[in-house]
């Protein structure tokens, strides 16, 4: 049943550099795309609305963050704030009557502008110090949103999203928001898959590996880091718009706090830095493990009549969740994408495990 790479030998560089060099991969991608498109008609709305939709939106955001973290090697602990800027700018534009398509771009641009200002400031520092500088961005943006009622929406600090439409379809109910998010996610995914094959992607890789070495070969690290901040913040802002319109429908400052930033960083790392596919795995794990573990524990406790103390029963999923993150990293410290690759490579060369040199 499994497939081999046997018989595929590339004769041109173009073939080798294809995104999906194996036909089976291409077919699988088409199949998954088709399944995602048909999902609202195939599966229960509960799974579309509260699993697939957040998976798609969070993946879009995590892809944007991965451009910065995996692509350019810049850690960012304020990505939640970037998404928040996008969300608040686009919702305010919508409330002012701007069409959603434009408000989405506007949110992206606002996030990109503010995000790259912070990026420029943070450019002097590296590694954990950069993490701290971006964390400071998170605090400053949080502060501004909370302290200015004009932004946060008054004493109630919640801003309802007015009804709107996307390319003529009213964004309401279960299906249209899903498709809007899917389209945006698809575009961002294709962009991320291709970016590594462009001069921009290669320049980023050079900057990531050693920025002063990159400078020597004529890649301006400052320019490309800034560009990476810009693009990544733009994607973040775009996601913020999608997130508020298609998923939250009412936005509040808590939705864009440090928790979101840490969650996204965790998704990218657990998935595998720099891996597009890994992002989806990471998002699925971090987003759904707590929910599913909760249901599993509740189910087990009910089915088998385990009389656990309430506190233990409530906290058991949290323990399992932490254990799961640790477990995956202990099994494969390079992330979920690497686990998949290991298994895939194992099958690709099976049963000649030492054949590839």
């Amino acid at each position, binding site marked *: 049943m499994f497939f081999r790479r046997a018989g595929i030998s590339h004769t041109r560089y173009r073939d080798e550099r294809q995104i999906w060099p194996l036909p089976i991969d291409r077919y699988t991608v088409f199949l998954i795309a088709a399944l995602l498109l048909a999902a609202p008609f195939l599966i229960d709305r509960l799974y579309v609305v509260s699993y697939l939709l957040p998976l798609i939106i969070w993946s879009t955001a995590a892809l944007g963050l991965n451009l910065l973290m995996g692509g350019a090697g810049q*850690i960012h602990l304020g990505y939640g704030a970037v998404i928040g800027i996008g969300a608040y700018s686009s919702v305010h534009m919508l409330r002012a009557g701007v069409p959603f398509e434009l408000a989405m771009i506007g949110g992206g641009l606002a996030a990109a502008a503010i995000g790259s200002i912070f990026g420029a*400031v*943070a450019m*002097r*520092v*590296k590694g*954990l*110090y950069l*993490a*701290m*500088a971006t*964390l*400071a*961005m998170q*605090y*400053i943006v949080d*502060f501004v949103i*909370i*302290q200015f009622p004009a932004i946060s929406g008054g004493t109630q600090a919640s801003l309802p999203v007015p009804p709107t439409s996307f390319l003529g379809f009213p964004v309401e109910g279960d299906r249209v928001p899903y498709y809007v998010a899917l389209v945006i996610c698809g575009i961002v995914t294709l962009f991320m898959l291709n970016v590594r094959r462009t001069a921009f992607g290669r320049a980023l890789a050079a900057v990531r590996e050693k920025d*002063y*070495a990159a400078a*020597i070969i004529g890649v301006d690290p400052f320019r490309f880091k800034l560009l990476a901040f810009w693009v990544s913040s733009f994607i973040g802002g775009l996601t913020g718009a999608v997130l508020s319109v298609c998923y939250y429908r009412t936005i509040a400052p808590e939705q864009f706090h*440090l928790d979101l930033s*840490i969650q996204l960083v*965790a998704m990218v*790392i*657990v998935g595998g*830095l720099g891996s597009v596919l890994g992002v989806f795995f990471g998002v699925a794990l971090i987003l759904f493990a707590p929910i599913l573990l909760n249901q599993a524990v509740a189910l087990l406790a009910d089915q088998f009549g385990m009389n656990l*103390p309430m*506190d*233990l029963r*409530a*906290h*058991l*999923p*949290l*323990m*399992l*969740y*932490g*254990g*799961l*993150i*640790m477990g995956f*990293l*202990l099994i494969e*410290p*390079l*992330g979920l994408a690497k686990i998949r690759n290991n298994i895939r490579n194992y099958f690709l060369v099976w049963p000649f495990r030492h054949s590839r040199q």
Partner: protein
Amino acid sequence: MDVILLLELAVNGIFVGLMYALVAAGMVLIYKTSGIANLAQGALAMTGAYVVVMLASAGLGLPIWAAVPLAMVVMFAVGAGIERLALRRMIGQPVIMVIMLTLGLEIFLRGLLPGVFGASVKRLDIGIPNAPLFLGELLVSRAILIGGGVSLALILLSILLFNSRFGIIMRAVSDNQTASWSVGIRVERAIAVAWGLSAAMATTSGVLWGATQGVDWSLSLLLIKALAIAILGGLDSIVGVLIAGVVVGLAESMATGILDPIVGGGTRDVVASVIIVVTLLVRPHGLFGREHIERV
């Protein structure tokens, strides 16, 4: 704005800053040996405080002067055990993955302790009276004074530790683990000791903070402030942490006193953030962090 108030805020700020610095010093201890930022430091403080509560009031009923040292011993073992069971297998792996592992540990501990010992806030009485203490017109809080003093003493002790022969080994390990192995340094043991000491220090912080706010999961939130102070100080410098702690404590206290009434909002975290960003712009490796030596 009267002088007494400013003075009071300054004294409070400095001592609270010292208490934060103690949490940060535990992070530095681990960073200095293994080069990773331990995101479970706050959770370790929480764990330590839970252990003290269990040994003292709620559990075995030991007197507090016996419970705290005993808890520190227990936590030393816990810290070393964490290194043995989890971190050791990650040696040589990308740093960011190891940091992520500590975040997993943080989540795990935050589930384990409240799950097993109960989520409700627990009282931790270390016998410091709350009654106000006036020095002239100046009011200082005994708890903060004692907490800051204990923190200062422990931080000074760890500075001494780093200048000993064991300190040289720890620094060598943080510099290059493979090279340390190659000359016979027991890297794992050094890191395990660092984790143990760090967990014991975290216990002290957990007790000092838990005595004021009570013991529950929220003690793990100390992490964020500790991380900020550790990075401002330079991540691998205990002296840096000491100074950064005082600077941040002072600035936050002053901001609360002076800026809050003007702005009408809690400026504490923002002011601290701005200080950190500005400092990092001037000194990209924190106040006392070592530079990255780059040779092509």
